[in-house]
């Protein structure tokens, strides 16, 4: 009984999260990038790529946002701002790292003022590589994030199903 209750609770959490995130609001933060990734993110809002048709909106304040889209290798000056913004966001919240610099520091990984990739500071959910990634890649990353939040089925089979006439090979499936 206890395990069933836990099962239901976690599935309910999943559904709640998925319900909230069906139309996610993004917050974009530049933690020391060259702006290449930022202008590609901004380009996703423009008529050719139009991220807003997926219900995705770019917000100005961390308190309204679900997803933090982060670009740039973290510079020391930006580190505290980034932490503060992450803390101001409400649960559930997700982090997307866009561009080579956000993944690992990129070409600047050994520079004196650079911390490295975003995952040195925050837990990252999606990594979108590229220098900069195309707007299509960014949209793909955001859509994959949404896809990963879909709830798993509530009833899982307890018994192994053994079909009586199980085909030997894939070729047989077509024939039978």
């Amino acid at each position, binding site marked *: 009984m206890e395990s069933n209750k836990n099962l239901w609770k976690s599935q309910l959490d999943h559904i709640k999260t998925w319900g909230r995130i069906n139309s996610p609001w993004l917050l974009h933060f530049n933690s020391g990038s060259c702006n290449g990734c930022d202008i590609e993110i901004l380009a996703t809002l423009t008529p050719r790529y139009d991220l807003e048709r997926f219900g995705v909106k770019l917000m100005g304040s961390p308190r309204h946002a679900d997803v933090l889209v982060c670009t740039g290798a973290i510079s020391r*000056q930006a580190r505290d701002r980034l932490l503060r913004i992450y803390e101001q966001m409400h649960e559930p919240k997700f982090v997307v790292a866009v561009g080579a610099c956000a993944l690992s520091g990129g070409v600047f990984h050994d520079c*004196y*003022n*650079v*911390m490295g990739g975003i995952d040195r*500071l925050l837990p990252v959910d999606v990594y979108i590589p590229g220098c900069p990634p195309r707007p299509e890649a960014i949209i793909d990353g955001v859509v994959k994030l949404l896809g990963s939040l879909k709830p798993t089925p509530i009833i899982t089979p307890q018994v192994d199903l053994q079909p009586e006439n199980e085909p030997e090979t894939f070729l047989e499936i077509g024939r039978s």
Partner: protein
Amino acid sequence: MDTQTALQTARLIVEDLSEKVESPETDRLDFYLKDKKNLVVAATGLRVQHLGYLAAITGLDPGAEQEALEVLYHFCTGYVTITLRVNVPKASPSIPTLTDIIPGAEPFERELSEMFGITVSGLRNPAHLYLPDDWAEGDYPLRKDFQLQVQPAQSQTKVN
């Protein structure tokens, strides 16, 4: 003014204040000033003659074992670049400010002072321009002997 006039005028103004004049490329003149006190006089002379604008200030560290840094002030007009070069001893690194005659020099001088550790005397607002507020005093990134004491990645904590 045209190239020849600019070069001649610059020589007239600055040659007496310099111990050496070189022309490393055509349309460029480098004046090695005798003393940093001559810097403001030379710059004022160039401004009065409307000979170019201050395009940039470059700091150079010839090497950890050398005793002096070098600061270059580049004045540009048309093709011509006039560079005033001043030696600044590492033992007492200070140089007078140009912001009284050239207000636009402020960001360049702030950058020079934080990157090389040169005190620009008379600079009204010597706060850091690029380096973070918590940067260690005495660490000057563009000097040749600069070693980052603690790598930024190791010193920061991670959010879980």
